[in-house]
């Protein structure tokens, strides 16, 4: 049975640009326009514009907004100043990952939580169940459009659009209110590509106007529209997690290498006791980056083989267009997680050589 797919306000813009639209997390989204490699390269060397309106956005407001969100995530939101953002995970009582999120403190009493499209219903239900009854919150995913402008020339494109000095100079993981192309929006210096860039949150009715304005301003800077295909290769090279692949409800943040977003000594949060226990008793596997040393491309679910036995599983894998090698992530026993360790990846019945490497695979 096929369910009805949601479309962003920009679906017709994507079609007009020749995009191939595919089902993704309940949405019909552009996977590519011109081709994944060309789009990937545009973001690494110039700039790319993504429609990521499928992402979920939840606004939490009121005097307790900060304390309430803090209780739901592992990172320390209590120290988040107005105009700043942080990356975090949200765990269940067992310390297992429900989603990874970016939390933005838009105003003193207004917090924006951005979650994955695939987890929106789950996270909204979790918030509904866990937030204090007196704390107003609202799932604004259906009213908000999210564009990501990413790449070394993103800042030039913003200048072209008449961005103020404040906006041009907005530091990483900061957010501010702005007006671009006569569109009121929230502009954040965040992204999911490993490049400099901005994420722009605007009302759906302004989506087409903003999209067209950015594309036009970007023309002389080599900006291309970029689909979810290149978004995946870009994030993988930068070792950014993809929920449902590298992390899920069977993984905890420590084994995923996300211990840095777990603040056990800050205020209490859901999952803290369990995570304390995991940290105290230790854990036996780790998410590692590897590159293929023989001909082959690892894909999610392929077994990792060492000494003839299955020791783990690939969680993400693809060619890395910038690094020029076939790369991947996977969980292996700690003893096999050191850089330089030889691994085998079982590709359609044949074991192909790979080696554990330092991550990120690509750093700007």
């Amino acid at each position: 049975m096929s369910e009805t797919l949601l479309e962003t306000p920009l679906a017709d813009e994507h079609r007009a640009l020749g995009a191939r639209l595919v089902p993704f997390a309940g949405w019909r989204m552009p996977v590519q326009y011109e081709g994944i490699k060309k789009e990937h390269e545009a973001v690494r060397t110039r700039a790319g514009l993504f429609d990521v309106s499928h992402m979920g956005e939840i606004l939490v407001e009121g005097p307790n907004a900060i304390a309430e969100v803090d209780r739901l995530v592992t990172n320390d939101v209590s120290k988040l100043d107005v105009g700043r953002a942080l990356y975090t995970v949200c765990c269940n009582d067992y310390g297992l990952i429900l989603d990874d999120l970016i939390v933005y403190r838009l105003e003193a009493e207004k917090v924006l939580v951005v979650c994955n499209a695939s987890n929106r219903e789950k996270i909204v239900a979790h918030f509904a169940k866990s937030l204090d009854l007196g704390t107003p919150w609202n799932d604004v995913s259906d009213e908000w459009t999210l564009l990501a402008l990413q790449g070394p020339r993103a800042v030039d494109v913003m200048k072209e659009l008449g961005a103020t000095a404040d906006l041009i100079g907005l530091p990483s993981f900061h957010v501010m209110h702005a007006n671009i192309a006569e569109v009121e929006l929230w502009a954040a210096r965040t992204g999911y590509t490993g490049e400099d860039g901005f994420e722009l949150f605007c009302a759906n009715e302004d989506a087409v106007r903003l999209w067209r304005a950015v594309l036009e301003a970007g023309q002389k800077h080599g900006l291309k529209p970029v689909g979810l295909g290149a978004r995946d290769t870009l994030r993988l090279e930068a070792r950014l997690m993809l929920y449902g692949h590298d992390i899920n409800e069977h993984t905890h943040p420590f084994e995923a290498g996300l211990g840095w977003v777990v603040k056990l000594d800050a205020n209490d949060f859901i999952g803290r006791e369990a995570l304390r226990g995991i940290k105290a008793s230790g854990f036996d596997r780790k998410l590692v980056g590897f590159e293929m040393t023989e001909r082959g491309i690892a894909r999610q679910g392929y077994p990792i083989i060492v000494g003839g036995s299955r020791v783990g599983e690939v969680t993400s894998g693809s060619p890395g267009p910038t690094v020029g090698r076939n790369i991947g992530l996977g969980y292996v026993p700690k003893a096999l997680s050191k850089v330089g360790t030889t691994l085998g990846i079982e590709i359609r019945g044949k074991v192909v050589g790979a080696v554990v490497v330092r991550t990120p695979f690509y750093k700007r």
Partner: protein
Amino acid sequence: MTYPRDLQYTREHEWARLEGDVIRVGITAYAVEQLGDVTLVDMPAPGEDVQAHERFGDIESVKTVSELFAPVSGEVVDVNAALESSPELVNEGPYEDGWLITIRPSDQAELDGLMDAAKYEEYLGTLDG
């Protein structure tokens, strides 16, 4: 999209062209569009036997892996060695430099069981939407 009239087509989006006593095989422009940038092609070695409508190899794009199906049974005569270092040839010219293998058919009549261009275009029409 229109498809070359001198080729026969499979439901799995391979094309076949009779050239003397061998059949050249590749994938169609439709398949190329669905795959995106081709990054790796796994093919049999010359001399190996392939069976009609059975898998003879795999083709990988940045995003995904697809199986390749033989349009006819027979022995692999030649494989396109250029694809080893330049898999993008499949994207650039799926009917020319991006061909995959040639087969010496065990029964040339199997070609007649494939679709001609008009039938293939009609078939593609049933896949969309």
